[in-house]
């Protein structure tokens, strides 16, 4: 068995869930929805990169 997993049962498109990141960021002074949208977009890119090595 390898090291402990950081996350369990993550859905597709997610490497690091926004909820986790949002908690770490604490108070968001501006437009939280914008930050979330862009976070999730790049998170999706990471997800696709990781899975591209397997889905072939």
């Amino acid at each position, binding site marked *: *068995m*390898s*090291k402990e*997993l*950081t*996350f*369990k*049962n*993550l*859905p*597709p*498109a*997610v*490497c690091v869930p926004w909820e986790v990141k949002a908690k770490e960021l604490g108070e968001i002074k501006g437009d939280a929805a914008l930050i979330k949208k862009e976070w999730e977009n790049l998170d*999706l*890119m990471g*997800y*696709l*990169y*990781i*899975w*591209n*090595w*397997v*889905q*072939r």
Partner: protein
Amino acid sequence: MAEKTSLFEERKKRYQAAMNLEKPDRVPIRLNFSGEFITKVAGYTFQETYYDWQKNNDATRKMLEKISDLEMVIGGANLWWAALHDAVGAKYLRFAGRDLDAETMFQYVEEPYMLPEDYDDFIENPTEWIATTYLPRIHTELAEPGSYRATAGLIKGAFGLAQQLGSGAEAMASYQRDFGVVPTITGISKAPFDTLADTLRGLSGIMLDLYQRPEKVKKALEVLVPHNIFYGMATAQGDTDFPVFMPLHRGAYPFMKMEQWVEFYWPSLKQVVEGLWSNGKRTMFYAENIWTPYLEKIAELPEKSIIFHVDQTDMEKAHQVLGGRFCLSGNVPNSLLAFGKPEEVKEYVKRLLDKYARDGGFILDAGAVILDDAKEENIRALIEAGLEYGVY
């Protein structure tokens, strides 16, 4: 320009009509060429298009210039850019010009890269397991996570893939603009069993798992279902005009007996196809080799949700069981394209169309991916025959 646009629209309409079981003006011709065939026609060496992605994209353009009347293409010649695999140190691919002669087709080295003891982590969080355990294992550059080499390897890998996809999309748009060709497919996905069997456990590994840890296999397949639906939609960038490519491997006969197929291969594949279909996305059910014993099960899928592709499946039986329910495609034997004469190809196509394309819902194609052994004159003969005998 306007002429090419209308050609694109005409071909798209024809393709979609066939997929919807209608009768277009004539049978659409969809040829699934390998990178190696395209490379050969374009006059490059395999090494050139594996390594030089500009040449890879040029190769398809050259083929479209040389073989007129091609109405669909997948994209640039090859699927995999060798340089990207060097950047990460991919153990599982061998390429022409590097560890193979410059004119040898790439080779996939199949090993159980995922071990039996990895199942639990995979089931808990496949994305994390792939990133932290699998990638360092299959990519020599990433072998020591956190090291300089591994960090550089990760960065180069991500840049490389982004570069490849960006130039691929540009190339596809240019083929469309300059030749009016439509994309054969948008996006790719797999049967969950194949995801597990092809790159992770390997064939021997998965076959032993069926006996030694069947419950883990089932759990892993269940976990894969939403990922595979999502992967198909995401790689298609949401497009639903064209089907998602699903190359099917280990579900062919005679890998598993019927009970195993029904227990392990089918349920998760069915869920993926249904999931895609509920997103409006049709699946190109690319059934390589023989699928005759499973036709009745496949008929359970929602009407029109797939294009059932015939390689060595019994064509008569496929038509009987699936005709009128799904669009059918394929069946022109690859050995005929490699060793036959143009007249024989034309004759075969004529018979095929007379017998099975009559009521619409049919796409002309070779049985399997067209490798570089296919003769160009036979491809031309196939197209000619399609244009001549495929008219409704």
